[in-house]
């Protein structure tokens, strides 16, 4: 960790000195960047998030958490290609998981291609980087239903006011990956999830309509994924904000489909976002008698509102109008979000059970209120304070069985370049 911080500081200082010089060598181009030639660049980026957390009641989570430490490069290879590579750094200061690793062909706006490992086109919040989200944590639906990163290839572009993305991926996203060890019978072939298809369209649908100008910037999007899921305890699962399972995986086999809708509107210093998404997973031959079960359904949604009380425009890459030490206090944003994630079976006939092969599953859901204050004293530095209130439908399946509601809070220090 110390090495990472030291490297970051050295790079920042040297790049800052070169920012005003000619566009060759190490320059400051939004981040420390080595410019080899026109349109051949290598930018260095880093992200660091340190959290201090409190829980009521205590759920035995650490008070301190190194939430994010990443280092990466991104840049251009001629005007036709761009690239990005980013990797996690763990608490011990060694490299962890790869994040984005892709090459992008961008010659035309109408049709572009991306190949490598990157986020599948599903979910507004999921496709917003962890240092750009309005709150410290994404909504549960964005974390657990939206697929996240995967290896694949995607075609995308802008057709007038319509933005489209469609890709084929190896699995079905990192968020749906199994983390638990699975018991495998001798000779049993452990199939992987996927391949999967994902697509999304986005447009400012109101732009063509006779509505007030402020409303014309409202953006709407619709997304869909489809993947094959092999037999096993492979369903999506319910995980509370701090990671405790409130709905364990069930046996599935067959198709997993996701549908999602998103709304994003940022008039002036305010922002209003909402998403709904649902996954339906088939359970072919999964009953105690090897018969088909009804689909397993995971649904989630959120609505959030934010307001820069210091007047910054929400649309911009946030830059405090009056930074600290330059006559101001920086930028301050207030926000509130309500989100919900629920898991259930399509069947509601007979007695409900919690067993992973029951046709009628005992439903459970987690409803979360998040109240936030973000302070950006200077560009690239952000202090996020969130208060989180969770309530569960089934009190026997919560972080502390028998307790249905939980308060938690965190203060996050975030550095980005």
């Amino acid at each position, binding site marked *: 960790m110390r090495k990472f911080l030291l490297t970051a500081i050295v790079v920042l200082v040297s790049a800052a000195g070169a920012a005003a010089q000619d566009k060759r060598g190490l320059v400051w181009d939004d981040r420390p960047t080595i410019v080899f030639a026109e349109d051949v660049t290598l930018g260095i980026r880093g992200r660091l998030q340190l959290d201090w957390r409190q829980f009521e009641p205590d759920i035995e989570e650490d008070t301190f958490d190194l939430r994010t430490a990443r280092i990466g490069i991104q840049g251009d290879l001629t005007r036709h290609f761009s690239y990005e590579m980013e990797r996690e750094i763990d608490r011990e200061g060694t490299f962890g998981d790869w994040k984005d690793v892709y090459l992008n062909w961008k010659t035309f706006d109408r049709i572009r291609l991306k190949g490598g490992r990157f986020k599948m086109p599903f979910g507004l919040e999921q496709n917003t980087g962890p240092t750009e989200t309005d709150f410290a944590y994404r909504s549960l639906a964005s974390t657990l239903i939206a697929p996240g990163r995967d290896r694949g290839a995607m075609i995308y572009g802008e057709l007038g006011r319509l933005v489209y993305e469609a890709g084929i991926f190896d699995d079905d996203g990192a968020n749906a990956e199994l983390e638990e060890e699975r018991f495998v019978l001798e000779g049993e072939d452990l199939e992987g999830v996927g391949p999967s298809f994902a697509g999304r369209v986005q447009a400012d649908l109101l732009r063509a309509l006779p509505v007030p100008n402020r409303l014309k910037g409202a953006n709407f999007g619709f997304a869909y994924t489809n993947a094959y899921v092999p037999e096993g305890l492979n369903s999506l699962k319910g995980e509370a904000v701090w990671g405790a399972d409130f709905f364990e995986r069930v046996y599935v086999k067959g198709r997993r489909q996701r549908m999602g809708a998103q709304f994003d509107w940022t008039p002036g210093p305010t922002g209003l976002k909402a998403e709904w998404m649902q996954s339906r997973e088939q359970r072919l031959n999964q009953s105690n008698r090897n018969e088909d079960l009804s689909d397993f359904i995971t649904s989630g949604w959120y609505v959030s509102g934010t307001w820069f009380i210091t007047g910054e425009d929400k649309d911009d890459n946030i830059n405090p109008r009056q930074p600290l030490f330059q006559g101001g206090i920086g930028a301050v944003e207030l926000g509130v979000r309500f989100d919900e994630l629920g898991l259930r079976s399509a069947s509601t006939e007979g007695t409900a059970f919690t*067993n992973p092969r029951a046709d009628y599953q005992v439903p459970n859901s987690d409803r979360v209120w998040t109240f936030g204050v973000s302070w950006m004293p200077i560009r690239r530095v952000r202090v996020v304070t969130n208060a989180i209130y969770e309530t569960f439908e089934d009190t026997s399946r919560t972080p502390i069985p028998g307790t249905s509601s939980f308060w938690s809070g965190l203060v996050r220090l975030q550095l980005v370049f």
Partner: protein
Amino acid sequence: MRLIARCLFAVAVVVCMAGGAVAQTADDFFNPDVLQRVDMWMHSTDWDKLKAAFQENTYYPADVTWNGQTVYNVGIRSRGLGSRSGTKPGLRVDVDRYSKDLTFLGLKSFVLDNLTQDKSGVRETVAMRFFTRMGIPTPRETHTRLYVNGNYAGLYALVESVDKTMMGRVFGSIGDNVQNDGYLFEYNYVIGRPWRFEYEGSALGPYKQSFDIKTNESKGDSAIWGPIEELVRLVNSTAAASFQQTVGARLDLPAFVRYIAVQNFVAQNDGFNGYDGMNNFYFYRLENSTSHVFIAWDEDNAFLSPDFQITTRLGDNVLTRNTLQVPAFNSQYYSVLLEAATSASDWLQQETQRQLGMIAAAMQEDTLKPYSNAEHAADRDTMLAFAPARVTYVRCEVAKVVGTTLPAGCS
């Protein structure tokens, strides 16, 4: 008139049919006179995985059918210590595993004992019936053919779980209050650490390890294990003169003496005074009381031999030794042995014979058992010979110890 006659006839038929469909109970399920048939339906992969990972306690869902009644989505796992098997798994059936209010005939769970350590197939069930006959708290048991997904999975003993439901059955009610809210413990034999009731110190850790709490789990450690530490301490430190008064307030001593005497009579070598320390029992602190009682469990090592000494290891275990130092309990111990001999004299062999007859075909057809039919036949003969020889041996040995006239047949 003809219409009225038809109506009356129809009503009579309905009444007769309804009368035939008598509601079935847990007593019917554990009826020792009936070889039951239990059908279990599990996903084929789950059954394979349960057998392959039989050393683990992973639960799998299943449907269970008995006598036309099906309970859906129960939880099943492999169970046992030395009896665990990947070919013929011992099974624990938790009816309420996936729906907390679900019961089957009022039961929240039951056990399917695979009989892998009992070549006769009846050691456990005969011993338990004898314990019941001698007034010792004992789970109900019978035999069953088990079918999994329509295939015969072998002959099993169907055993009532020692749980709150059984405590209610055994200890009854006071007014409307069922006496099953006490503290129930399963004794946990720790491999490599034989324990004979020596005091382990004031820290609760060792008692917590040996007595696995089954009810009132949410209570504090001192409420759960504190009284056990106190009991062990007092058993180890109380002088004989005040033993009955001091320890008797915390342990039903007459019931304890009866329990160890009957266990000796059936020549159980792996029980309370077992060859490697204590083993195979439940322990119950009665509701709103400081007093504890022993509950019999897992007697499939009984009937070791007819000449199993009546004083076997009586001096090894601190509780046994100190209790029997009290003259009244020493006298009671031998009285219970004689009472057991009288109770067993005709009954034990007849019961053994009856049970062996009841399971004969099911045992022969069980190809998954870890012993041959010839081995079963040999053990069957051993079991049948046990009762008359044991009765004579015990009567003779008791007479020698207490100094009365030797009965006929003594050597």
